[in-house]
């Protein structure tokens, strides 16, 4: 088991991606933050396909931070796909999005999200949220072990 686990950030907006990276850095969580631009790239990364062919797929991220408002595959479809795939279905997925709409939250949990966090507009609170997220999912939470054969 790797001691340095990655955080997979699925975020199409460059501003938000940079702010998230800065927030994690501010929160002194220097874990490897891998940013992909949409759901297709996210699944490629997780399953070692296309641009990520050859990646060691047993090295799963500690947590996936998933935006909902994505081009090509929307966030819910990505989540559904993750939960349907034997190899990655237990991956912790935190929906990290601007919306606080009831229907988004309900759909997130219906599709099997572990958690739902609204991105604060206030940057200080954003940093705080990043720190809390990081501490919880990287340090406190224990991911699923590999299945015995």
């Amino acid at each position, binding site marked *: 088991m790797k001691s340095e686990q990655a955080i997979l950030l699925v975020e199409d907006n460059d*501003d938000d991606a940079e702010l998230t990276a800065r927030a994690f850095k501010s929160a002194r969580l220097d874990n490897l933050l891998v940013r992909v631009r949409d759901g297709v790239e996210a699944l490629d990364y997780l399953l070692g396909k296309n641009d990520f062919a050859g990646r060691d797929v047993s090295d799963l991220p500690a947590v996936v931070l998933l935006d909902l408002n994505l081009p090509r595959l929307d966030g819910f479809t990505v989540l559904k796909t993750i939960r349907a795939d034997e190899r990655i279905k237990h991956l912790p997925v935190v929906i990290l999005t601007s919306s606080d709409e009831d229907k988004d939250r309900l759909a997130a949990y219906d599709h099997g999200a572990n958690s739902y966090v609204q991105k604060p507009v206030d940057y200080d609170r954003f940093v705080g949220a990043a720190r809390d997220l990081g501490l919880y999912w990287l340090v406190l939470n224990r991911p699923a072990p590999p299945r015995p054969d």
Partner: protein
Amino acid sequence: MNADPHESTSRKFAAILERSENGTSEDVLQEAYELGRWAWGQGMGVVQITILQYESLAAALERVPTREMTGQVVRNAALLSAECFSVFEMAMRGFQESNAALTEMNRKLEAANRDLDSFSYSVSHDLRTPLRAIDGFTRAILEEHGDKLDGEARHLFDRVRAATQRMGQLIDDLLGLSRITRSPLRRETTDVTALARRILADLAEADRGRQVEARVAEGLVTNADPRLLTAAFENLLGNAWKFTKKQTQASIEVGKEQRDDGDVFFVRDNGAGFEMEYAAKLFSPFQRLHSDAEFPGTGIGLATVNRIIQRHGGSIWAEAARGRGATFFFTLGAGS
């Protein structure tokens, strides 16, 4: 023509029945039938006419001695029944048509609601994201390049951040207002005393420096949507809390007055108040009666409360004087 058509027609039927003692049953049937058609033309309800016609038909048939139950009588009775049924059929068709119209209207409302949903969705995502960028990168400038900036420059950036906070709050409030408009209304018996006390306790907890004398009447109960009522009280009590901040002896009171046409709840404070001549603006969105510097706010709170009260079928009004506090009165409609 103010007489109740039902009553006068009933009297006419009664008169027919009385005469049937003496006249032939055929005449009775004929008269009842014609009266029914006339009443229908007058716009009386088909159910009422049909009941009356059946009643007179039944009464008339009862009076017919069996030997006089001629073919003609039977035929007329059958005609009358058929006429009643066809009137029923017309009414049913009418009901079905208005049902169809209602269904169509429902469909349109649902489409409009979906549009509102996607508008809110848009606002949620598309407005908040660049706002976050403005706030975040401004902060990044201050943190990482603050040493290159003089006090004035830093102050200007602080004002940028303050403005983004304000816009963020406005977005939240607008979305809240839109949500209130769209959510279904579910009435249940609600303990208003407990609700108000809980909100006041939360306000006190979040603002420990302040001493506010809060009085909530015992036994306040109503039949309303508890989530919406909570939002309404949070706004009203939050306002009372806010506008009494300059009083040395701030006091807030929640109670109920019994008036002729029902209970009226009130929230009273002894804070800044406002001039009654501007009261008409009170419940419109974005309209404020105080400057933001004096008392921060977006001007959506009371618009939200107004919407909640309206959805309950009630009404809300205020009485106040500048420097002498304000009282907000509201009712919660017939269902409460």
